[in-house]
């Protein structure tokens, strides 16, 4: 009997493509963010409010993933920035190969920011690196406070938690302090921003977070 050590990651090939993408993004000083959440938490709404606030000269593009329909790309294209739908046809997450294929039609020298909206799912998207600088998880207050405990991998791998729909807090038994505590349990030190994409409350904090990331991406490129 012979034992052959393999020591390979199961998602090795996805990781390899993601690393290539990350290197390309770095080379062009592009900030790539991967937005994840359960269906209906408000990823598209957050992107709408984000794009709406950008100057038309802003060099930003959006990729949005869904199992079916191009509804989200239509919603996001209204703001005049390049927006492309990735229709997975059943797959419950985006993978690095899909991103590589989708961005092939864009000239990366024209971009500073690439926002990726993943398929609504708190499980599988956590396992697939898309070459992003950070994952951002959106949790709406109409879900449970225990979502971070139920889906620890997603909350652990996301740098920022956006707590959305806070305009609904007066009507719900949702305990926001408990949600924050649960997020900190699975991801000690996790950054958390409370927003309402409907009223706009909290959005300046999100925009400031985003701009600080954009600035550090550009700085990294300048340094290389």
């Amino acid at each position, binding site marked *: *009997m*012979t*034992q*052959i*050590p*393999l*020591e*390979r*990651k*199961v*998602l090795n090939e996805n990781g390899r493509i993601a690393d290539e993408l990350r290197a390309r993004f770095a080379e062009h000083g592009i900030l790539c963010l991967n937005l994840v959440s359960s269906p209906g938490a408000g990823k598209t709404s957050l992107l709408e409010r984000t794009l709406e606030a950008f100057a038309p000269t802003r060099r930003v593009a959006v990729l949005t993933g869904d199992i079916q329909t191009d509804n989200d790309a239509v919603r996001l294209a209204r703001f005049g920035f390049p927006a492309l739908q990735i229709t997975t046809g059943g797959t419950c997450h985006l993978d690095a190969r899909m991103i590589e294929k989708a961005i092939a039609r864009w000239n990366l020298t024209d971009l500073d920011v690439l926002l990726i909206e993943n398929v609504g799912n708190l*499980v*599988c998207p*956590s*396992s697939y690196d898309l070459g992003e600088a950070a994952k951002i998880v959106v949790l709406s207050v109409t879900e449970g406070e225990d979502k971070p*405990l139920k889906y*620890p*991998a*997603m909350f*652990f*791998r996301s740098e920022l938690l956006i707590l959305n729909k806070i305009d609904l807090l007066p009507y719900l038994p949702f305990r926001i302090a408990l949600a924050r505590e*649960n997020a*900190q*349990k*699975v991801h*000690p*030190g996790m950054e958390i921003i409370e927003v309402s994409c409907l009223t706009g409350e909290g959005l300046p904090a999100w925009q400031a977070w985003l701009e600080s990331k954009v600035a550090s991406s550009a700085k990294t490129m300048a340094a290389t």
Partner: protein
Amino acid sequence: MRVSKIGVRIGDLAGLDPDALRFCFQALTKETDLESVVLVIERKPRRQRCSRCAHEFVVVNYETSCPECGEGLTAFLSGDELDLAYLEMEDV
């Protein structure tokens, strides 16, 4: 030589259910040359290190606070593995 065993390592944070993997493995290998291959799954717990006292510990029941000093800010060490660890071959 033929493959007799395959070793897989799954961390608590990998987002993968070992029973589901076993189920898929059996479904895929059934009535094939690989039917006799044994799938060995090694579970890896989540480990954290305390930012204050440097104590290293296994996370039980989502509790990432330091069991020694109570500090809430602890750093991730390991537990998100999803690895093919080894193959075992035997002479036929």
